[in-house]
């Protein structure tokens, strides 16, 4: 029982991380039907940027105060991730807005490779995983649960809380605010949204901004939780997040979050309980994906593919 609870917690932590990244995938897809394969790298860059904030910008006397250092690292990571996402949209995707859909997709793959290599070669020591400061992982909560001890760290709690709160704030913003309405209108029918006076570029930039900020925050949380960051994680978690977005239904906020948690839980639980253990956990994720897509091609919460005149 203790093992089960422990794995559930681990699954929620991983799921929260995936959900934060998946939100960016799903929002960008919803608005311009682009699978932004470089979004995973935005997350990775956010991790490195928050580490750089700590190493190179924080006065040494602030570094040991996590309540001071952590928010500043989060801001550093998120700002760099946002700038990166917006620059990417402006110079890589916008010129291809009316090109065949394959063109921006290939571009996204190219951007992804470039970002990874630039960080790997440009960030000091990034050819191997770069350690994060350990200051934030100190606090572990342990408690007895039936037959054993369950362990949950403060960074794990932070990951779960931030992902859920972030998703709720985002959902509220999208459904209630004026700009949120403009984003939904653009996603449903871009031309008619323009007839309402919605500036499509502004809406698209806002979408990349939100996605970038969430990915950047995910990068910081990943770093302090895993205690290192590595140029490979962009690709790996990008794939997880992309899968989560497809599973939940691309374009759906709720879907991205549920998809993220579903994948986190499947990965940890199958790794623990299914034959083959962690060697096969990725297999089960894709088995789930295939099963869902066979019965619901639009994903759990997706709208059926719209036919546009």
């Amino acid at each position, binding site marked *: 029982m203790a093992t089960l609870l422990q794995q559930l917690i681990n699954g929620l932590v991983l799921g929260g991380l995936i959900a934060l990244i998946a939100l960016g995938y799903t929002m960008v897809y919803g608005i311009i039907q682009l699978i932004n394969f470089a979004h995973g790298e935005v997350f990775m860059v956010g991790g490195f940027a928050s580490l750089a904030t700590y190493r190179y910008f924080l006065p040494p006397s602030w570094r040991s105060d996590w309540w001071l250092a952590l928010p500043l690292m989060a801001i550093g990571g998120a700002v760099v991730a946002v700038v990166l996402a917006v620059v990417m949209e402006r110079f890589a995707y916008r010129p291809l807005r009316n090109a065949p859909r394959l063109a921006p997709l290939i571009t996204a793959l190219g951007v992804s490779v470039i970002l990874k290599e630039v960080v790997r070669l440009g960030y000091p020591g990034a050819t191997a995983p770069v350690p994060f400061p350990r200051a934030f992982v100190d606090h572990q909560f342990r408690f007895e649960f039936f037959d054993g001890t369950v362990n949950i760290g403060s960074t794990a709690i932070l990951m779960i809380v931030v992902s859920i709160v972030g998703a709720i704030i985002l959902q509220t913003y999208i459904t209630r605010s004026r700009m949120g309405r403009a984003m*939904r*209108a653009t996603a449903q029918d871009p*031309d*008619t949204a*323009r*007839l*309402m*006076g*919605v500036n499509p570029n502004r809406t698209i930039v806002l979408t990349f901004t939100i996605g970038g900020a969430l990915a950047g925050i995910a990068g910081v949380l990943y770093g302090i939780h895993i205690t290192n960051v590595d140029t490979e994680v962009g690709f790996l978690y990008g794939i997880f997040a992309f899968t989560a977005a497809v599973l939940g239904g691309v374009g759906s906020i709720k879907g991205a979050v549920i998809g993220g948690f579903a994948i986190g839980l499947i990965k940890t639980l199958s790794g623990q309980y299914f034959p083959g253990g962690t060697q096969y956990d990725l297999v089960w994720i894709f088995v789930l994906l295939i099963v869902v897509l066979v019965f619901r091609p639009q994903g759990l919460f997706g709208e059926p593919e719209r036919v546009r*005149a």
Partner: protein
Amino acid sequence: MTALLEVQNLSVAYGAIEAVRDVSFAVGEGQIVSLIGSNGAGKTTTLRTISGLLRPKSGTILLEGKPIADLAAHTILERGVAHCPEGRRLFGRMTVEENLQLGAYVRKDSGVAADMQRVYDLFPVLGQRRTLKAGLFSGGEQQMLAIGRAMMSRPRLLMLDEPSMGLSPIMTQRIFDTIKELQAAGTTILLVEQNALAALALSDRGYVVDLGRTTLEGPGHELLADERVRAAYLGED
């Protein structure tokens, strides 16, 4: 007197297909002007070009004497041109209220709530269902909402593309009555219709569009009496 909207020698192409060639017409302040013509004549293309969704190949579009053909669609709306598109194009997954709010998207004044009430007064059925998703409504109700949504920006020029399409005769009459009321309230109207009889009866001026060209023009009642119009568009021979 310069017209509120003046379109001169407009040509618009989709790739190699020239859908509009040499269309010219003018809409005076406070008038109802209709473009009539058979399916595929280029009426919708003309309206989409005026509202900035398409770019002309050649020709001029003047709003109060100033060229607008290069402006972005959202800027043209801000200049006071609203477009109620063919097929209604509501945001079907949003509520009635959200659709109307989007109609007022560019407005920052405090009159939005009052204008929304005005739409609900005009079409009480919308008021009763303001929290329902627009996609669930019948064709007539959707058309009311589409017109209401276009009114929400308080346009000086309202362009309506086939507002009677797919509606029952009673519903069509409702819509045409509404158009007349909007004119009385000071809105200038550019109306595109296949229902030429009803449109011309209502219009101060009409233009016949055929194969991308304006071929005939005149006051609404004169066009109604014109033999060529009657033969081609009113089903008489």
